[in-house]
């Protein structure tokens, strides 16, 4: 379990990173964020890059900022920094809740927000949360900067739409509409393991009627999945148990080709997707109702 040899570089600026990418065949370079996914791949020699480009010294990628539109998180911000951020807890409690579901403290001390997004593990929490929060991901390359909606960012297993010469720099999370309820749940064999399946939702309520519901599931398919047809089935309907059960059943039916592996069968994953979507919608509806009546 020792990595194959590689060259190593740790530039301290984004322009330094782009310069190194420009001097090398980008396919031979592996960007390292917190390393909590890449280091196991290196140790097991599943990844054998010629050059490891460590982003850990780029201080400009480590920040959490509030803007007029919401919150911006630098790609190299650790999960622990998110967990310790009053701003995230207040503005995006859903993002906070999904963060403390990831791994264990030593993993969150090193693992980064951008690293998880770019790794795009289908069972990872952040991509699903990015979908329901309609986050935007910002990437730079020598060719310039582009802003990518989360919907377009995650492509399939461990694959994003990032080009080999691009570097993810920040994640922009727009502010939720007032009185939006949210929920996040996952099923894992042990706390801190990758989820077998998880679900997350946001939802507004006006006079008991669902407004702009958003639903995402992770661990069920080749990437985090959002369910526009189930969302439109719920929108404008009263958020009753009956309606929510129907929406959850539609999500379960819409999961195409669920993962089937040693941890869980495809049938079980499909079943879990439905159960968890039902739970997160109910929980989000309760939060939305509390937000409307309270404070």
């Amino acid at each position, binding site marked *: 379990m020792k990595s194959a040899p590689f060259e190593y570089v740790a530039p301290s600026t984004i322009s330094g990173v782009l310069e190194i990418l420009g001097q090398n065949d980008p396919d031979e370079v592996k960007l390292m964020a917190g390393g909590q996914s890449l280091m196991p791949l290196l140790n097991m020699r599943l990844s054998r890059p010629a050059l490891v480009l460590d982003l*850990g010294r780029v201080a400009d990628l480590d920040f959490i900022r509030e803007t007029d539109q919401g919150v911006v998180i630098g790609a190299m911000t650790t999960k622990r920094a998110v967990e310790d951020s009053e701003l995230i807890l207040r503005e995006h409690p859903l993002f906070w809740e999904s963060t403390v579901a990831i791994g264990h403290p030593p993993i969150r001390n090193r693992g980064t927000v951008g690293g998880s997004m770019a790794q795009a593990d289908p069972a990872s929490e952040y991509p699903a949360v990015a979908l329901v929060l309609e986050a935007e991901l910002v990437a730079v390359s020598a060719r310039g900067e582009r802003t990518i909606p989360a919907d377009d960012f995650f492509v399939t297993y461990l694959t994003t739409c990032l080009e080999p010469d691009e570097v993810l720099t920040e994640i922009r999370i727009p502010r939720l509409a007032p009185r939006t309820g949210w929920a996040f749940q996952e099923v894992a064999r042990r706390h801190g393991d990758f989820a077998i399946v998880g679900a997350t939702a946001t939802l507004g309520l006006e006079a008991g009627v669902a407004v702009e519901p958003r639903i995402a599931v992770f661990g069920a398919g080749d990437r985090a999945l959002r369910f526009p047809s189930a969302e439109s089935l719920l929108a404008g309907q009263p958020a009753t148990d009956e309606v929510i059960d129907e929406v959850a059943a539609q999500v379960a039916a819409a999961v195409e080709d669920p993962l089937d592996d040693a941890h869980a069968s495809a049938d079980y994953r499909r079943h879990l997707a439905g159960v968890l979507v039902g739970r997160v919608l109910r929980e989000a509806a309760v939060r939305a109702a509390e937000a409307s009546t309270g404070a």
Partner: protein
Amino acid sequence: MASEQPQQGGIRLKVRVNGEQHESVVDPRMNLADYLREELRLTATHVGCEHGVCGICNVLVDGQTVRSCLMLAVQVDGKEVLTVEGLAEGGKLHPIQEAFIEEHGLQCGFCTGGFMMAICELFDRNPSPSEEEIKEVVGGQICRCTGYNAILRSVQNAAAKMGASRS
């Protein structure tokens, strides 16, 4: 020093480990666990799964617990590392170590260092953690002997000892 340009072969590394300054030249691929064990001969940091799951190789880097198998040695350049060897002071065991002995928090002892380092960070963030908060941290390492109850009691005992020494 980790540099702005790619390097193969040796990279110079300056790091303070358990209060002592070290300067080494390391292969980029050498992980922190192997550096501590093989270069510095600090073999109390044990190596279990080597892919971040078991938590046995936990050490503190600038006060934060990390899996030393998931960090490159070159990444601790300029940082402060604490290992199990750095817990006892002047021949006196750390209260966490004493508590593990008193509560039988170990049997074979292979995983124990990983637990103690994670618990160091826990106490640093929260001197009187609740049972739930302790479980969150204890659950980050794998012990195949104790069934964890004795470890939980060890942490509670250590919290009491350290609280008493503070007041």
